[in-house]
Structures are given as C-alpha cells and as structure tokens.
C-alpha cells in the first residue's frame, strides 16, 4: 500500500516522494520518488524491503505478547484456584 511511500520519505537518500490516484474507478497509483543521486528504483525497493522487515518484527512482537498474556492469564487462574483452596484449609484448621 502507500506505506512504502512514507517509509522511503524517512530515508536520508530521498528528497521527494509522493503518490496520487488519478481516478478512483480505476485501480492505478502514480508513485514519484526523487533521490539524491541513487537510482530511484533501488531506493523504492529498499523501502519495500524495510517495510517487510518491519512487518515481520511486528508479527514476532505481537505473537510473543499474545503468548505472554495467555500464559499470565493461565497463571492468574491457577492462583485464584489455589487461593480459594488455601482459604478453606485455614478456616478448617481454626
């Protein structure tokens, strides 16, 4: 999508980049990239690569966060169970 445009904007090799959609009925996007000397095609490809790596990073972090959340929820559920049972024990002993 248009994210590689913003991605390449952040690169110090790019002086100008932008996109436009000439007409909403036809699925066409005009992308313009202007660089400080490097071939523009390479810069755009690098921006896409960067975005791909970022997405992989996002996926890894997200999966780990979901796993941690599920694990901590499971621990909480066990703790609540053990608290209930220990509460009963202390009442019985007294």
């Amino acid at each position: 999508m248009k994210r590689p445009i913003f991605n390449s904007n952040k690169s110090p090799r790019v002086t100008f980049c932008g996109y436009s959609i000439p007409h909403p009925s036809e699925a066409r996007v005009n992308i313009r990239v202007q660089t400080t000397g490097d071939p523009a095609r390479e810069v755009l490809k690098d921006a896409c690569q960067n975005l791909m790596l970022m997405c992989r990073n996002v996926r890894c972090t997200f999966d780990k966060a979901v796993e941690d959340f599920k694990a901590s929820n499971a621990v909480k559920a066990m703790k609540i169970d053990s608290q209930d049972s220990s509460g009963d024990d202390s009442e019985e002993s007294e």
Partner: protein
Amino acid sequence: MAEGAGEEKKKFSIWDLPDVPVGQLPPHLELQRSRVSCNKDAPIHTESIQYSGAYASMGIDNSSRLDRFSNNFRVEVVRLNEDDMEFDMIGIDAAIANSFRRILIAELPTMAIEKVLIANNTSIIQDEVLAHRLGLVPIRVDPRLFDYLSENDQPNEKNTVVFKLHVQCKRGSPRITVKSDALKWLPNGSELVKETRNATSDSSSKPETYTYFGCSQETIPEFVKNPIIPKYPDIIIAKLGPGQEIELEAHAVKGIGKTHAKWSPVATAWYRMLPEVVLLEDIEDDLAEELKSKCPVNVFDIEDLGKGRRRATVARPRACTLCRECIRGDDWEKRVALRRVKDHFIFTIESTGALPPEVLFTEAVKILEDKCERVITELS
C-alpha cells in the same frame, strides 16, 4: 567604533551553553513532534514529521532505521477473549497502523454464502431478500483451508461449502421462526440434480448435481471434530406462517471484504491514540471539585493535601473520550491540556467468529508483507 565592536563580537552558539542537552529536541519541539494537541476548536500538530532532514539543524537524525524501530516497538495485550481483543501498539507510525486496520476490514478472506439455489419458497420473504440475508450469516470455518473459486472453476470440495435449508410450517400449527441453526452442512456436496437436456439413459452413473465433489469434506481432518456450522445459531433468517415452506441449497465461497461486506472477518476493527491529560497548573479545592464533576468518564480524582485542602489529579487518562467538557467554559483551557500520543495506538478487533482475533491480526500483517513482496518483484 562600529568596526571595533563588530570585530570583538564572537560567534555565539546556543549549544555552547552548559545546561542545554545535546542530541535531544527542546521540549516544545518534542511536544510538536510526538503529541497531537487537542484544543477547544480543533486538534493541531496532527501530521507526523516525515522528512528525514527535519531537525538537521539541531543535529537530530529523524530518519527511521530498522534497529531503532525494533528497539522501541512494543505490544501489550489488554484483553483477549474468544471473539474480541484489545491491545496497545507502541512505537509504530500511524500509516502502518491504518494499513493494518484497512487490511483487517477489507482484505482478509472469509467464507460466506454466495449462490443460493432455491427449490421452493412460498414464504413472504422474497427470494432475493432471503438470499441476501443468508449471505450475511457468519460461518464458523477457517478460510485458509479453502481456495478461491473463479469463474472458470467448477465448484468442488476445495472451494465450496454447501448448506441445505428445508423448513416447513404445517397448516394448523403456529407460525415458526427460521433461525440460522436450521442450515445443515452437506459434506458430500450438492444434492440438487441438474436437469440435462440430452436424455442419455445412463441409470448406472450418478446424476449430475451443481457441485463436483471428489471426496466428502468430512474426511478432511480439521472438519472431523468441528463440523461447519454458522457461528451463531440464533440469527433469525425468515418467519413462516402456516402452509409456507422454504427449500433451498446455499453454496459458500471464499472472498474478501472489498467485494462485499459479507466477506469481512471482523465485526469491526478500530484504533485510537493514547490520550494524555495534563494539568498545567495546580487545581485546588472548589475548582478541583468542579473539574472532577465535569468529566463524564471520571478521568480526574481528588487527593487530600491535608489541612482540608484538596487537589485534582489525573487518575484514568486512558478512559478519556475527548468530549472536551473539561476545557469548556472560561479559563479552563489554561488549566487542562488534552493531548494524544502520536505513536501509541489502542487497537480493538472484534471478530465475527471465523478466526480468533489474534490470528486475524497476524494474517493481516502477512498480507501486507505479501503486497510488499509483489511490488519488489514487479520492480525488479
């Protein structure tokens, strides 16, 4: 005399002062760069500073590098149920967050009923209305196990799921409501026989139906324990009076939300930026009580300072809905600042049931990666 004064003037740089921190933006610029200030009439500083050389004169590098991104990026899950989840994404740009939201709504594939073959419909619900309603019923099946059905393909067990609906309201019995649990899954494919013009009397061969199933879908391991049914059994599809009957067969295929909203896997998916509420000056006693009562979601709290004096504090900034009640009225804008953090997004995903929400988000990220790959291969 003027020349003498000019020669003695040395070049003065602000960075030479001892207490100016180098390598960081001054606080007012940092506020502009990282926070959206929500004023009484409109928010300002909403765009993210994209240009890599934006703060070059200060010696700050604004370019985004992958290592900095991976160090700063965090995900924190707040709530995770079977059908919905809420999580925070910190350190990401608004453009990527929006891409994920758009892909979740429009480009994740699902299975939904597309073709309805109606054998008999004597109810008051018209054929097309009935077909439209059936299309919107969410089906509990993993769309990744199926292929797309294009125009030239024949419907077979790899790209179609067949349901049957046969309900009858007998004369003399009360009106019945047809709910979605009346849809029965046919793992062996269509049962309606196609009428063939050439009357070849091949009584030994199987009659031709509307689908060409090679094998029964029940044999696929994922469906052995989980039969394919609509996710919610109590969706009202039609109502029948005495003597009315509906007999139809529905074929579900894979599609994406862009074509029709029935194929959208999320009830909805949205994000908001983390609210930051800052008290610009100390608000005490009566003003504090007034502030606390103004906010409809109880963002503010009163704390006791001792000697009967009370002070207002910000207790739950995350609950702020930006109703701007706290800055309405004279002078309140000088006391309370409402801001949003530009790179902290609170994402909420509500799934319709085909896939759990965390799987939906992972699939959306995968789709964005695939798109990038396609652009790269096209460019080479």
